[in-house]
């Protein structure tokens, strides 16, 4: 427990210190030191909780006489899993931003580091409280501190616009969350999750519509924060705005905390019932909608960070699909449900790693070239090879190519949604729906690959062109943070058993009443197999063993090439026999997949859709009757007439003493007599 205290202390002192320091380098260094402390503490602590499957609770203070609510830090395996993610990503983010902030010459670090650390504190708080009131407090703190990061470059118009959209969207939906909490409090008379859980079964029994409304409020609040379309319209405008290290934390952790909250509320706070089953289907369908539209829209983007923001939308859809399938089938087939839930949460873990890695890659491009527009940069592999390799690893991971980490979690999600075909007690069309969801997600993972190959190809491959800052080389700290994340991607893909076990513990801890780990997943350190029904093993997936024939074949072919001893020669690029300067014949990022983009772009009415995503929506115009508008113009019929009358009256009064001395003296005498009488009256004749 003291580890959490130490880390909070380190973070708060870091926040206070950095808000006084103007030097970027020093401020970043202090943040880094504090983050090393706190993320080490949290990492160790959460690992301890997960391995021993503990449940830790400590009350800090209570609002008992006033409200039935108390600030209690209570950590189970689910919270510990997210603490693990937060500690990993926040360490890499602070390591990266230490030198990265040098790019922003005019902006003060006072507007960055304190809010970044506040964001870390808030996200740790969100996962470690089990009280609705303090959950909302930390949730709002997270929104607020991230908003300050969004408007870091206040002079940019797009930053202000994105910040405004973010602010409005999240706060409107937080109002729904507060509404839900108030309704729940009126029934349970306590804000703690445990009491809410008890009273919610009563609400379901007595007032089914109200319980649906509460679920709707919770759903809409978290879905908006996660950026699921159509509620996530703000996300592509907002995430590219802050410095890349902050957007990396946004994409890697903040939007995943919404998934955490959804998981926490639907799987542990609210008891499983027919209602949550219906909402499971709704969550899955919204998830698939945002997978489809978000990722295809990402294909049409030419700006690296905006492209990744669209992918943040698409990837969140995968998690929602997994959680939705799990919620739907938890009563029907607990094996299938646990696989789906584990798939969803495993995807959260993987996604937070590679999404933050990719945002950091975009940040490195920005550091070197000053832009993230894919049409303006190319050939950066030659100046930053390690970034290019890590970007390739991140891209392959996000597309789910084996043996990287995205593969296993996507596999669990695909299979659990397609396996619903075997649940004959479910209605035919719903089964069909789940299968179509599965197929769409298989198809979209190829689209993901396509759009990330576009990113890698146009930014890192090709001739070195565009504006490059020759003097500014990538510092080791920035490269190191990317390498750490890329390494975790590879490791989690090669040894999937360990993260699976951790995540299964988290699922069990939050939702209970699921089959044992050993009956769902079989395997050892090297590989893993799953059972969809009891005792129905289908063989295991051994990523290491897959590598063996690969390595043998590689050695064979390489030795053949060595044996052939082909001579090597450096040549110029061949432009089909013509002589061109390289910049005359560039294939820009914009040109990638043009026919496909044309195929998915269309126009409905006046709205242009690009990759199923509306761009350039014309301003909505509507007219109201003149009389109504007249009422609205209070100035015209109330204020100005009265003011006119009053001015005329005072002008008339002003004429009374029109600079004539005699009149003035008479006024004085009359006035003093009046005051004397007044004083006499008030003193009561004495």
């Amino acid at each position, binding site marked *: 427990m003291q580890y959490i205290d130490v880390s909070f202390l380190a973070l708060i002192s870091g926040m206070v210190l950095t808000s006084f320091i103007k030097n970027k380098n020093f401020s970043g260094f202090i943040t880094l030191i504090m983050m090393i402390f706190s993320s080490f503490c949290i990492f160790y602590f959460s690992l301890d909780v997960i391995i021993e499957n503990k449940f830790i609770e400590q009350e800090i203070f209570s609002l008992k006489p006033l409200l039935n609510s108390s600030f209690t830090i209570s950590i189970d395996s689910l919270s510990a899993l997210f603490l693990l993610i937060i500690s990993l990503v926040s360490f890499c983010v602070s390591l990266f931003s230490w030198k990265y902030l040098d790019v922003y010459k005019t902006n003060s670090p006072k507007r960055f580091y304190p809010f970044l650390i506040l964001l870390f504190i808030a996200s740790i708080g969100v996962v470690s409280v089990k009280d609705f009131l303090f959950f909302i407090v930390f949730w709002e703190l997270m929104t607020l501190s991230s908003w300050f990061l969004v408007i870091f470059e206040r002079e940019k118009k797009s930053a202000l616009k994105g910040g405004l959209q973010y602010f409005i969207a999240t706060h409107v939906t937080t109002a729904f969350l507060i509404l839900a909490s108030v309704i729940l409090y009126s029934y349970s008379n306590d804000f703690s999750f445990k009491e809410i859980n008890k009273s919610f079964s009563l609400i379901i029994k007595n007032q089914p519509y109200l319980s649906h409304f509460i679920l709707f409020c919770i759903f809409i609040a978290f879905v908006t924060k996660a950026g699921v379309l159509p509620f996530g319209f703000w996300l592509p405008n907002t995430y590219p705005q802050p410095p890349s290290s902050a957007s990396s934390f946004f994409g890697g952790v903040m939007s995943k905390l919404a998934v955490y909250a959804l998981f926490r509320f639907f799987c542990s706070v609210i008891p499983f019932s027919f209602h949550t089953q219906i909402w499971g289907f709704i969550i899955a369908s919204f998830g698939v909608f945002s997978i489809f539209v978000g990722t295809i829209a990402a294909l049409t983007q030419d700006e690296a960070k905006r492209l990744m923001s669209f992918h943040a939308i698409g990837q969140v859809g995968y998690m929602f699909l997994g959680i939705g399938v799990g919620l739907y089938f938890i009563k029907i087939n607990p094996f299938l449900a646990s696989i789906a839930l584990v798939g969803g949460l495993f995807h959260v873990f993987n996604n937070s790693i590679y999404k933050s890695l990719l945002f950091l890659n975009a940040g490195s491009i920005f550091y070197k070239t000053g832009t993230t527009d894919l049409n303006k940069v190319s050939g950066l592999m030659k100046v930053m090879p390690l970034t290019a390799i890590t970007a390739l690893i991140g891209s392959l991971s996000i597309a789910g190519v*084996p043996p990287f980490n995205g593969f296993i979690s996507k596999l669990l999600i*695909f299979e659990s949604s*397609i396996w619903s075909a075997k649940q004959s007690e479910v209605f035919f069309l719903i089964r069909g729906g789940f299968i179509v969801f599965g*197929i769409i997600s298989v198809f979209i993972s*190829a689209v993901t690959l396509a759009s990330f190959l576009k990113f890698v*190809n146009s930014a890192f491959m090709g001739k070195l062109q565009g504006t490059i800052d020759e003097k500014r080389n990538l510092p080791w700290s920035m490269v190191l943070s990317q390498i750490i994340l890329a390494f975790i991607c590879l490791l989690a893909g090669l040894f999937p058993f360990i993260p699976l076990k951790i995540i299964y513990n988290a699922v069990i801890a939050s939702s209970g009443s699921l089959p044992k780990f050993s009956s769902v997943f079989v395997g050892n350190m090297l590989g893993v197999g799953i059972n969809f029904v009891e005792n129905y093993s289908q063989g295991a997936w051994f990523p290491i063993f897959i590598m063996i024939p690969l390595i043998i074949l590689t050695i064979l072919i*390489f030795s053949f090439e060595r044996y052939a001893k082909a001579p090597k020669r450096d040549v*110029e690029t061949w432009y089909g026999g013509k002589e061109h300067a390289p910049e005359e014949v560039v*294939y820009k990022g914009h040109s990638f*997949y043009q026919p496909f983009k044309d195929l998915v772009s269309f126009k409905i009415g006046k709205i242009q859709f690009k990759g199923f995503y509306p761009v350039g929506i014309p301003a909505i115009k509507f007219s109201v009757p003149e009389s109504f508008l007249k009422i609205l113009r209070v100035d015209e019929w109330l204020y100005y007439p009265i003011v006119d009358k009053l001015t005329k009256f005072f002008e008339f009064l002003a004429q009374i003493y029109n600079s004539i001395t005699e009149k003035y003296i008479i006024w004085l005498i009359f006035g003093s007599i009046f005051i004397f009488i007044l004083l006499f009256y008030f003193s009561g004749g004495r």
Partner: protein
Amino acid sequence: MNPEFVIFSSIVNILIVLILSPFFDGFTRKVRALIQSRIGPPPLQSYYDIIKLMGKEDLKSTINPLFRLSPYLSIISIGMASLLIPITELTPPLNFWGDIFLFIYIITVVGIAIIITASASENPFAYIGASRKMMLHLSVEPILAIALITGAINAGSFKIGDIVLWYYSNGPNVSMLLSTVCVFLSLQALIGKIPFDISEAEQEIAEGVLIELSGPKYACVKWANMSRQVLFCLVFTQIFVPWPFLENDLLNILIALVKVTAIIFISTLIEALNPRLRIDQALKYNLTLALFSLTSILLALLGV
């Protein structure tokens, strides 16, 4: 599953897909020559080509290390994919609970390897080819995925071995027949031959993705393309037309070879008699086919 079987059948699979593929390529060249009333090269010409190219001068247009590595990745990943096809028996050497998705991803890796080679070569023609190759893959991958998922729903398993076993013992039903037809219609796009060789169109973009390759790299990519032909013909014949299967392993191998030869003959006929499609036409064809093949899933759900 005993290790002897795994080792034996993996060696057989790799042998058929990688080592025999130049022979099948020689066969297609002979057939094409006969259609065009030429004599054509000897059947072993493709072996000579590869061996000669391995020793030819290696021209480097870039210092990018990926340009050097990824041609080898393409041939290796095809060898990997071949391990997922049942040839000697009804079960492939490599099978686990999600190998239909593994298969889909591995054939994606084949594409990625060639795309990365192309884009690392810094040539604008290669970029055009890479972009087209990715689009073609995007449109054709769902057809194969839907066909395999139809099989998975019917068989109640995500293993290729179980799908083939079910198909072999229960015979074709409507949904499986439909998906078999869909895979056959997309076979030419999977192989990447005319009318779908848009990413390598010689006359238009000067071999597109292959333009900067020479020497051993060119040999690898050429070899990978030959092997890809055999691989996808094997996918069609062994997974979607699994009859007849016998007790004897060697006879099974022989039957597989005969079936593959027949399919390659048909595919060569299509190649020799058709013009190349434009990329937008190809995309429309494939996506329409993919949407149509969704009906096979519905039929499989109904149990027919």
